[in-house]
């Protein structure tokens, strides 16, 4: 109840800043349109392979927005006022995170609709794709909460760049198997490549839940860990 009240305020802040919202949704769409043009050169750049990676790119931007909102709020007297309200740390985290979920859903839906016009196909269960993407949306938003709780505004861009690179080198728009080496090893221990493999397997090969389960464990495990860490990071921030 209290978390919803805070989420409502943050939701209004998000929707009353159309420029940031437009960039968060518009830039990934532009990226999809540009990159799919290379489809003739490299088979990896087909809408089916590319769209999930571009969605994760959009989620990185969403993570940045989440971190910015919290970090900017922390520097205001309003934040002190909010902290005097009787909310638990997890309620605060929910209140700051929830407004970004609808944005994540709109972003992913927009990219998949445009991808469909460009020739994207889902051979398997679309529900599985939605599930993995939702878990990854929570992962990135929770990561944004950690960054926003711990870092001031200035170093946030650096953290954004690191997560963006990890996502790209996690296979967002490159074939990790073809690159191999350290990138493939890194991809195997982080959640990004597992999420992309799971989605692409469902979309391109019609894989089922059992087939993608090993990848799914990584994704869900990382998301749970990051969500718990987000609560701890915020709790730490609640007391000077």
């Amino acid at each position: 109840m209290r978390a919803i009240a805070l989420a409502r305020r943050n939701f209004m802040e998000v929707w009353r800043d159309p420029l940031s919202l437009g960039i968060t949704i518009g830039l990934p769409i532009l990226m999809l349109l540009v990159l799919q043009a290379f489809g003739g050169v490299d088979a990896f750049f087909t809408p089916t392979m590319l769209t999930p990676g571009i969605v994760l790119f959009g989620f990185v931007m969403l993570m940045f927005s989440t971190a910015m909102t919290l970090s900017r709020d922390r520097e205001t007297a309003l934040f002190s006022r909010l902290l005097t309200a009787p909310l638990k740390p997890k309620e605060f985290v929910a209140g700051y995170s929830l407004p970004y979920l609808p944005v994540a859903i709109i972003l992913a839906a927009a990219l998949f609709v445009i991808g469909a016009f460009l020739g994207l196909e889902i051979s398997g269960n679309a529900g599985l794709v939605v599930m993995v993407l939702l878990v990854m949306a929570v992962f990135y938003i929770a990561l944004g909460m950690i960054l926003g709780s711990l870092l001031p505004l200035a170093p946030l861009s650096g953290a954004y760049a690191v997560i963006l690179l990890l996502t790209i080198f996690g296979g967002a728009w490159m074939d990790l198997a073809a690159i191999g080496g350290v990138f493939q090893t890194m991809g195997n221990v982080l959640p990004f490549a597992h999420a992309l493999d799971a989605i692409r397997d469902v979309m391109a090969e019609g894989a089922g839940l059992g087939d993608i389960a090993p990848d799914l464990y990584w994704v869900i495990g990382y998301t749970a860990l990051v969500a718990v860490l987000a609560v701890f990071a915020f709790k730490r921030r609640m007391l000077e």
Partner: protein
Amino acid sequence: MSSVTVESPAIQTVALTKRFGGIVAVDRVDLTVERGELFSLLGPNGAGKTTTIKMLCCLTRPTGGSASIMGHDIAKAPLSVKAVIDVSPQETAIAGNLSATENLMLMARLHGFDKRVAQSRSEELLEMMGLSARANEKTKKLSGGMKRRLSIAMALVSDPEVLFLDEPTLGLDPQSRNSIWAYIEGLKGAKTIVLTTHYLEEADALADRIAIIDDGRVVALGTPGELKAAVSDTPVIVVETTGLTEQAVDALREIYPQVRRFEAGLEIEGDDISLYEIEDCLRPRGVTIQATHRRRVTLDDVFLELTGKQLRE
């Protein structure tokens, strides 16, 4: 959850201390604030007032001592404390992209009020603070005084048992200050209020009791009258003059040893002061007396006597 007794004071601190590295911001403060009391923490900037408030609002952890609000321990039961308090921070604390109504609704809902009650309390406070006409505009478009009034209203919307007002009139024009004073005056008795200020007039006019804080320590505690009575009961006559010279002042000092010169004239402290004698001394030396009056002891005198410095420094 700490046990709460009906008799517990609104606020009790025992040797409450806050250190930042080697600096002691709040030094073993013992305070008891009764329910319904308007208690003022008076002191210059950096005295430790805001840090004390932050500890009592569970925003920063004490490094020593303990405190309880309405019987709830601030360290052990912060959520119970937060359920009975609200605070108007020193800086204006509002969400700029939200309207005044939305800001008030936000705070009411965060404190657990249902939508209907939150709406009705918001409307009531907007009316009271003279903000109804601008209730639906984004607050970043409001004037500084309006924002401050809204910020205070946001602390009231949850109907707290204990209200912390941290420098509520700082930087406000006299008209806005007077309207906020009138509102605080209206709350007296109904709520326990802790008011921090470095405006002497504010503490003098509003507070039931005052704790004077300097360098993190409570140096005096009492009603405004008690504090002033403790300083001196020797009368002070203020003589406003034109054409005052050092020779005239020296001549007057031969009659009254306690003569202080100030911008507009002289202050003479002592019993049995004769205005005729003063005039007889000054007029032949070319000094014109514009006005005379007996000055009452102010809290500034109290602060000066206790700390050796003026509060306005």
